[in-house]
Structures are given as structure tokens and as C-alpha cells.
């Protein structure tokens, strides 16, 4: 479980996050949604400790991130897996070495055992047989799946996904969404997904937090989101003319 209590962050005079309170539970796909520039990425970077909040407290289970010393923070980070928007695979390493990297760094075991774990993770994301390819030889969707495989290789308790569908076609997008959903349910991990892709939200958003101009203005699930009377949220959900007309017709 991850709990945010009054998280605020300013860059200069500009308030990017303003008094965010939220709780993200394990075994659920928690989604942080909002238009571009609403503060989603800063919130995610704050949660993983890349950005220090100006105010507020952030708890991983019952441990406060701000009060952890270096060792505790490093220990926590080994329990965190993250899928970046660009996948952030190491270009100079093959897919196999990308997945072996965290294992060799933090859980060195016999070569066979580590390769077995890598093979399992690649199998899990449907990319068995790509071990010897370099990231430059992979498509966008494959890169994201390798990113997911690398994120789960150390069996994390917390999985963060920053815009996992950006730049992907709808079919691959849904495939990535289902993968994230399946992994979340299978390992009962706390998953937080940043997105503004409404297909993803409606497909697997178990718990949704909506950010508008750095403030949390709505919270609910995918059933409730279609009935919300939050105007900025509706502008995001019903962004296309087609959906607006559909909404008007259906009342």
C-alpha cells in the first residue's frame, strides 16, 4: 500500500502538486489520470523518490519515504519496478543483459538460475526468444514489454508505469494494459499507472485518481467515471466529438 498525505510541490512560483491525498491499494490497478501538464509525472517521480516534495508525507506500507536513510531507501527501491514512458532500456545491452542487470546487481545467483528467471519474465510478457536482440531492434510495443519484464524481474511489491500506452497502436495498447492487470492480480502488487488514455482507464482502472492543475479533483473507479459530474474530468473522458454526441444522446 502507498499512501500520500498532503503532497505538494512547486517549481519556482508554479505549483505543480497541491495537497494531494490518496491511498493506492495492492492487487489493484491504480490509475492517475489527467491532461498533459496536470502533474501526473511529477507525482509519480515524487512517489518513487526522484523528486522531493515541498510538503506532505508519503508512506510505503507504514514506512515514511522522507524519513528513510540511504540504506532503507535503497532496500525499498529494490521492491519497486518501474516502466518508463520511453521504456528506458539500456541501449548498449541486449534484452537478456537488460533483464540480468538488476539480478546480477542485487540478487547474484548461479548463471543458470538467473537465466531461468529472465526466461520466465520474458515468457510472461510474450517475448521468449528475443534474448539476444538489442533495444534498437525492437518495436515500441516490444520495448514496453521488455520494460515490464525488467520491472518485474526482482519480484517487486510496487509497480509504477508512466504512460505505458504512449506511442502504441490500440491493439498493442490493450495488450500492455492486460499484461499490467494480470501481473498486478497474479502477484498482488500495488500498481500505479499514469495515463491519459481513456481506453486503458475504462479497460482496467480499478482505482482512479484525477488530477487537474496539480490538484486531485476526483477519485473513483471505472464504473463511476462515466457518471461523474466533474467537468474537467468529463472533458478528458469525452474528448472526441463522437463521444460528446454519444453522451448527449444517452443523457
Amino acid at each position: 500500500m502507498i499512501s500520500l498525505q498532503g503532497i505538494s510541490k512547486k517549481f519556482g512560483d508554479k505549483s505543480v502538486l497541491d495537497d494531494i491525498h490518496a491511498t493506492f491499494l495492492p492487487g489493484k490497478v491504480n490509475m492517475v489520470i489527467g491532461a498533459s501538464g496536470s502533474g501526473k509525472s511529477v507525482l509519480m517521480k515524487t512517489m518513487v523518490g526522484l523528486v522531493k516534495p515541498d510538503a506532505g508525507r508519503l508512506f510505503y506500507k507504514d514506512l515514511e519515504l522522507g524519513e528513510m536513510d540511504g540504506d532503507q531507501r535503497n532496500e525499498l527501491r529494490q521492491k519497486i519496478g518501474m516502466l518508463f514512458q520511453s521504456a528506458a532500456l539500456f541501449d548498449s545491452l541486449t534484452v537478456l543483459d537488460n533483464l540480468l542487470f538488476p539480478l546480477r546487481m542485487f540478487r547474484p545467483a548461479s548463471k543458470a538460475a538467473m537465466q531461468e528467471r529472465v526466461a520466465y519474465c520474458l515468457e510472461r510478457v510474450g517475448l521468449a526468444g528475443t534474448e539476444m536482440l538489442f533495444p534498437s531492434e525492437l518495436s515500441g510495443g516490444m520495448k514496453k514489454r521488455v520494460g515490464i519484464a525488467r520491472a518485474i524481474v526482482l519480484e517487486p511489491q510496487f509497480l509504477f508505469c508512466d504512460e505505458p500506452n504512449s506511442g502504441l497502436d490500440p491493439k498493442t495498447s490493450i495488450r500492455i494494459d492486460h499484461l499490467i492487470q494480470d501481473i498486478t492480480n497474479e502477484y498482488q502488487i500495488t500498481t500505479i499507472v499514469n495515463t491519459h488514455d481513456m481506453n486503458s482507464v475504462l479497460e482496467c482502472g480499478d482505482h482512479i485518481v484525477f488530477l487537474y492543475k496539480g490538484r486531485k479533483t476526483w477519485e473513483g473507479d471505472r464504473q463511476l467515471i462515466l457518471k461523474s459530474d466533474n467537468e474537467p474530468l468529463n472533458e478528458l473522458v469525452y474528448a472526441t466529438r463522437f463521444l460528446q454526441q454519444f453522451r448527449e444522446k444517452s443523457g
Partner: protein
Amino acid sequence: MLQLMLRKPENGRMYWEETIRQMSSIGLGSVGIVAFVAVFMGGVSAVQTVYQLVAPYISLTVVGSIVTNSSILELGPSITSLVLAGKIGSNIASELGYMRSSEQIDALEIMGVNPVSYLVGPKVVACLTMIPLLVITSISMSILGGMVICQLTGLITFDQFIEGARSTFLPYDVFFAMCKAVTFAFFISSVSAYHGYHVQGGALEVGRASTKAVVYCCVLILLGDYILAQLLL
């Protein structure tokens, strides 16, 4: 940044492997250009020295002495370092800059790896060990280049060159050259790593960081060259 670099590694073996990889890339990857530049540097300085020594009362063995001393004191360490600032410095800055802009550094940090220590540390160690060796190579190739050019063009013979080189050789000069090499190696690695690591933005900023790194390295090398000469000679 230096403080972060000196933190205990998460896995010593992985750091060692990365250091060896960097040593191979920086050292072996630069031998060719260093040797090529040095041979011509030595050859040209020999030809120009002979050109200036037109007085009949000056022994031509002095050509060997001048080429050797200038190779050890200046051409080897300083010119090689300027060349390496362009090659290694821009490489380090653009590599780290690209890793920063493509979130690879963030990925390392989230994994729990200290990115400064893992990415910058091995590069600094590799430069500190390999650049002095490259400077020794450069000095040797420069002297050899001067000697071969003198022989081939009939300016002076091998024996005359070696006689001149031996007559004024001081081991302290080699020590001085190594002091310069280590200092310049630190400038090249740390300055370019700093500029690359702190890139904010995309391809344009990576290019700018790379250029900045080379310019600052060259300025520091020239300043350091003067200060070390004043202090140690």
C-alpha cells in the same frame, strides 16, 4: 557529485566489470588516433627544428634533444590530452547526456543503483589509468616519428638523433609529463561527466553539453598546463 561517486558500490564485481569495459573502450579505442597524431607531431617538429637550425656551429644532434624534450614535456601530455578531450570528453558527455534524456539514469536510480557511482566512477578510474598510458604511447610515437622522418629525409641519422636525445634526457621530465597526464585525465573525465550527467532536455541539449564539455576541458588543460609548468619546473 564526487562525494556520490565515492559511495560504496552495490555490487563490487559489476563495478569492476564496468571499469574494465571503460578502460578497454577509452584506452584501446584511442590508441590509433593518439599514435597517428603523435607520429606526425614528432615528424613535423623534427623537420621544423632542422629548418630553424641553419647555423653551421650548432650540432644537428640537438634535433634529437629538442624533439625528445618537447615530446616529453609538452607535445605528448598536452596535445594528446587536447585530442583526447575531443574524443573521450565528447563521448562521455554525449553518452551520459543521452542516458539522462532517455531516462536510463532514472531507471538505474529507481533500481537502487547509485548512478553517479556506477556510471561516472568507472569512467574517471579508466581515464586516470589509461590516459597516462596513452600519453606514454604518444611520447614514444612522437620521438619515433621524429627519428624516422629525420632518417628518411636524410636530415640526420638515427645515431645522431639518439645521441642528442640521450644527452639532455632527465627522468624528472617523465615524472612531470605523468603529473600532467593524471591531472588532465581528471579534468577530461570529471568535466565531461558533469556536463553529460546534468543534461536537461533532448538531442539539442545533449549536443550542447558535449560541445561545452570539450571547450571547458580544453580551457582547463591549457590553464593546468601553465600552472603545472610554473609549479613543477
